[in-house]
């Protein structure tokens, strides 16, 4: 390697920075701090043309070091961040936000709140308009903290209520928090974005005070407004809200339908399938089958007894009624090449039987229908089950044997 014997300011700071980064990667915080002291003088030079200047670099690196260094304290950190705030006007609100997060992570909720309030009141010419996004976030997080206070007050009241105490001041406090929180949370939920936490809290507040319409509207916007980024959680929240308010099955199903499209492996798919199976409409039942098959495509569901039992129930029902076997055929068509190895191998048969009898039961039923009585899985499990003289396995064996022709029709 050729070692340059030349050196200038820029190069020496680049080299210094690489030493800092190296030390940080090795978690050598003392060494990182040491080299940072030599890097700091680059603040005295103009880097306005660079993408990331020394002030931002120092802010980020300094934060990392102070987070991890054994001798660092919150006090040190705060003093450091205050200096960083004065360093770059263009970054002021961002630094405030990150400072807040840090305070929250350390459980300093009051300090975080103060920090946000101070930031909210910051004005700096045209910068205020430029940093509008950060300002909105700051307001939103303050709203969140207001919600948190409100929640605390509420719990106090509920406790006291049980004990028979009345507490006017707490109630007033609570209402005031409510007002403050709703103002900011309402604002942020209007802007397209992913605001799960804010939405949840906002809806909680609205529901408590009985403003269900507003709550429903917010959730609808969040889930259905195309300007908002696609977010499975939005549909989950809407569904939960509708369920809470006893809405019709129809609206529940339509809420979950989108969830299925977006996240077919979501845990709510079981609820969805259950609802759909019970439906009187053929289309809905058809959809139910599709939903449960789709869910079981995912590895995370392999050992989910509930899911298998849903599938087993529906498949069994179809087979007994002898109607709509083509449904099963269609669903099985795209899966018959890989589901056997994925779910119904002999190894899995053994394991499932050993670890979870119910799981093996449900799966055996499905395997027996889809792959016939001679398939590895069914053979092994039913044999084991019968050997162990578990009643339901005997019934299962009889059932599948009787229905074997069905398998031929499905697989054909």
């Amino acid at each position, binding site marked *: 390697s050729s*070692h340059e014997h030349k050196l200038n300011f820029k190069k*020496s700071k680049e080299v210094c920075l690489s030493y800092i980064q190296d030390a940080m990667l090795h978690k050598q915080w003392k060494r990182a*701090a040491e080299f940072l002291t030599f890097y700091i*003088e680059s603040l*005295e030079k103009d880097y306005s043309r660079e993408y990331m200047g020394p002030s931002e670099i120092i802010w980020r690196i300094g934060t990392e070091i102070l987070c991890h260094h054994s001798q660092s304290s919150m006090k040190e950190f705060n*003093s450091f961040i205050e200096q960083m705030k004065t360093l770059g006007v263009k970054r002021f609100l961002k630094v405030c936000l990150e400072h807040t997060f840090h305070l929250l992570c350390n459980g300093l909720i009051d300090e975080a709140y103060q920090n946000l309030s101070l930031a909210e009141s910051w004005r700096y010419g045209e910068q205020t308009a430029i940093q509008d996004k950060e300002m909105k976030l700051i307001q939103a997080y303050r709203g969140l903290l207001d919600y948190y206070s409100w929640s605390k007050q509420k719990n106090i009241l509920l406790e006291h209520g049980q004990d028979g105490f009345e507490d006017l001041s707490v109630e007033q406090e609570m209402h005031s928090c409510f007002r403050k929180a709703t103002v900011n949370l309402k604002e942020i939920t209007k802007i397209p974005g992913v605001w799960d936490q804010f939405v949840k809290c906002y809806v909680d507040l609205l529901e408590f005070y009985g403003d269900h319409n507003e709550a429903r509207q917010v959730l609808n916007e969040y889930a259905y407004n195309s300007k908002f980024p696609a977010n499975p959680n939005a549909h989950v929240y809407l569904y939960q809200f509708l369920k809470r308010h006893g809405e019709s099955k129809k609206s529940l199903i339509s809420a979950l339908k989108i969830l299925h499209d977006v996240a077919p492996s979501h845990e709510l798919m079981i609820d969805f399938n259950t609802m759909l199976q019970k439906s009187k409409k053929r289309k809905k039942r058809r959809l139910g089958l599709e939903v449960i098959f789709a869910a079981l495509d995912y590895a995370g569901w392999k050992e989910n007894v509930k899911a298998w039992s849903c599938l087993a129930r529906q498949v069994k029902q179809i087979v007994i009624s002898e109607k709509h076997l083509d449904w099963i055929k269609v669903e099985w068509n795209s899966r018959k090449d890989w589901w056997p190895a994925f779910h119904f191998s002999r190894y899995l048969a053994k394991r499932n039987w050993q670890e979870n009898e119910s799981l093996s039961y449900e799966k055996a039923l499905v395997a027996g229908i889809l792959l016939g009585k001679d398939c590895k899985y069914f053979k092994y499990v039913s044999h084991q089950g019968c050997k162990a003289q578990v009643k339901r396995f005997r019934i299962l064996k009889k059932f599948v044997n009787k229905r074997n022709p069905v398998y031929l029709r499905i697989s054909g």
Partner: protein
Amino acid sequence: RDFNERCAQCSEVNWGLTDGGRFYCRSCHNVTERTREVVNTDFITNTRIQTISKGLRKQEKTDGGCEWYVCEGFQLVLKKQAEALEALGVCPQMKDEILCNFWRRYLQKSKQAYCKRPAGETVKALSVCDSSTDVDSEPERPSLLHFLSLSESDGDLQTDCSFVSSTSKVSESTSVCSGSVDGSLYLMKNQKEKLRMTMPMTLSFCYMALLWLREPMTLSDLLRFVVEGHIPYLNVFQHFPEQMKLCGLDLKIFCVESWPVYEEVYTKMLELAAFLDLPRFPDITDSCFLHPDMLCMKYLMEANLPDELHNWTCRVVKKIRIGEADFLTLVPGNKSTRKVKYDVLAAAVIVVVLKLLFLLDDHYEWLLSDFAEERNKNNKEDGPYFEFKKWYKVIKCSLDVEQKKMDEERAKYLWRCEKPLFYSAEKKSKVLKRRQMVVNLQNQFGKLSGSVLPAEKPNPSSFQLSWSEENADESCFHGHSLKGILQEKCGVLTAVNPDYWLCTVKLCNEKLCGHPAHYKEVDFPQSYHFVLRLFSFLLRIQPSYIHDEVCLIEHKLFNKKLCKKPKFNPGLRK
């Protein structure tokens, strides 16, 4: 002289001038507040001569500053450097006589002082922070935009407030100015003919003076002392007196943001010597430190090589006649003679000798080493034979350690100093605030660095590596013998190694591509590269410079053989 008022105290008209430029009555010694106004350019010239020799300060301004010229600044720099050199052991003659005279001669030649009238210079320079001056009507005012294109070093000397943006306010030029009277003129004029003074050039001056006195300090030594902080260079303006305010364009002139480069300082020195019309320098004879025989001795010691190698370096030096005074001595302006870089030359001689004795083709030297090792195992009473392998291990180890240290030092190098710099008075408070923050942050993270204190400046030493024979681990090779690799033929000691490979068969034309050869590590044996790397580290220059010199020496050494055979194998017999 033109002052005709009567004295308030004694009513006489008998005025004189104090050192401070005020009028005083010679009869009653009453000092007035009236000061001598600047009237004509002749007076200005005289002022400068006076200020240079006496250090007079004229015309106190509101901020406590005074007028000063750029060359005065450089004079101060040179003075400080000379003092530092004296502290390092250089004889006082250097500062008081040699350097002084060189500098005066320079001022004369460049017509900045010591002459009747500076050519073409008007003193209607950019007014210095004097808001009363109506600068817009100045016909001579140079365009500020022009200054931006002149950049001496890589770094922009801008504070956080960008200088670029302020050019739009050209008419408000009071925001950009210079503390010195002629800072703007200095940068603007095309001074190529006059050899404009720069910070690196101060080192050229120093080296030139050292060379004249034949002091035992090579250019690489000098530059190393500069980087280590023993000689003022970086932030030398700290030493300017309070009244000499630096701002604006002065920063471009006096602030340094890169290490001095050997080539640059050397070339400027030659230019300077020619410019000053200096005669032939005092002869470099074989008793001088800079003579290759002496320098080779030093470098051999530093490289931990056997003293016996010195015989060989002397032989090579003699054979190619580079030990002669006519070759070694600098004759300024003589374009035909090749200029000598003493340190590089000596290092290259050693490299050639190593090639002669050990071949350094990644095979032979290890073979020889194995033989020596065998012999050393079986014979412990007589002195050890030199084993290349052992030496290699020892040196590599040290070199890696030192290199690592140096790399860390480069990363830790601090460029700023206590005394802050600002482009203009407006930026001052911002700069000061910034500096305060820097100091705070440095303290905060300094505490978190653990027990590590900033390393003390290493004591200046001529030797970077030292080896002692008292060490029990036998890591000193000075006394080792070369017997194993030598043989006697016709009463003359020659190398056992019969071969030699040339670094390059043909030298490049320096005028076309700047170098006689072009070094690429991959094209050469690793042992060769290692040896180059060693001296590259000691001299703080690129291996290619040493390689260039090696090529030149080889071509001199094998000149006859090269001329004889037009078609030519790189391996040849000596």
